């Protein structure tokens, strides 16, 4: 690539570091190209490598400098900048793949937990039904109308709770398990579709 393309890409790769550091780097290399006598046709990346690699070195150098500053000057703003540059450096480095794998594992755990929780709610629903059913004979045992009414009320409440919990379990299952797995399938179906173009 020629010098203008190189400098533009470098500036883009450095967009998250402070303005001062970015301009310093760009002017250093612009000056270097001028001293080299590089015209617009010369392939500068043959000598300098890729803008991306160069940016990585510069970013970690700049992050180092700001960490040093922070420990002596303190301040929240430089801390935030430092955090961002460390995050940048991490994502630029080739460990983005293991991090993505961690994300996948977390998703699987989420699905499993959703499954377990919705199953537990289902069990609770079943218990409520059983409790309601157990109440029904008690309605007909003589002990006064009031007592029968209370038993009937409890049975109905149990039934109502059971219905609520059944729908709750179904809803949880839909969100946690089905939602994630179909979303996942759609992602990969989409990718496969694009590959076949």
């Amino acid at each position, binding site marked *: 690539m020629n010098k203008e393309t190189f400098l533009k890409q470098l500036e883009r790769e450095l967009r998250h570091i402070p303005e001062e550091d970015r301009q*310093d*780097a760009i*002017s*250093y*290399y612009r*000056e*270097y190209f*001028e*001293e*080299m006598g590089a015209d617009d046709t010369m392939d500068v990346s043959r*000598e*300098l*490598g890729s803008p991306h*690699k*160069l940016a990585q*070195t*510069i970013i970690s*150098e*700049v992050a*180092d*400098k700001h960490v*040093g500053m922070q420990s002596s000057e303190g301040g929240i703003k430089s801390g935030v900048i430092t955090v961002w540059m460390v995050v940048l450096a991490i994502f630029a480095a080739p460990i983005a793949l293991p991090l993505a794998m961690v994300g996948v594992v977390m998703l699987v755990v989420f699905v499993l937990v959703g499954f377990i929780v919705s199953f537990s709610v289902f069990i609770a629903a079943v218990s409520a039904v059983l409790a309601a059913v157990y109440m029904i004979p008690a309605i007909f045992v003589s002990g006064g109308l009031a007592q029968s009414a209370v038993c009937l009320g409890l049975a109905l409440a149990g039934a109502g709770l059971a219905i609520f919990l059944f729908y709750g379990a179904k809803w949880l299952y839909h969100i946690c398990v089905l939602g994630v797995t179909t979303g996942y399938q759609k992602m990969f179906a989409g990718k496969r579709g694009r590959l076949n173009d």
Partner: protein
Amino acid sequence: MTFQLAAPLLDACVLAIVEQRDVYGYTLTMRVKEIVDISESTLYPVLRRLQKDTCLTTYDQPYQGRNRRYYRITDVGRERLLFYRQEWEKYKSSIDVLLSAGEKETEDLYE
């Protein structure tokens, strides 16, 4: 290049070059490349680091309508260079002792 140039040694070379006279980026890179085969992109981070450590300062000088940024060594830089020179002497002697000792034993074997 058989033996890689570690970071402190590269710092020392840069400081030694700047100590002789103030230089700008391009000349400095060319001078270092005479001694050791480095990539152009190696030197900028080194210069940044030395500036951060106050071993170097910079000043600009216009030249033929463009700007040249010169690097100059500071007192801190001179002290650092002195330290590197001492360390290098120690390092050089111990490696020499090791490498030539083996050589001598090999000679004795064939006598």
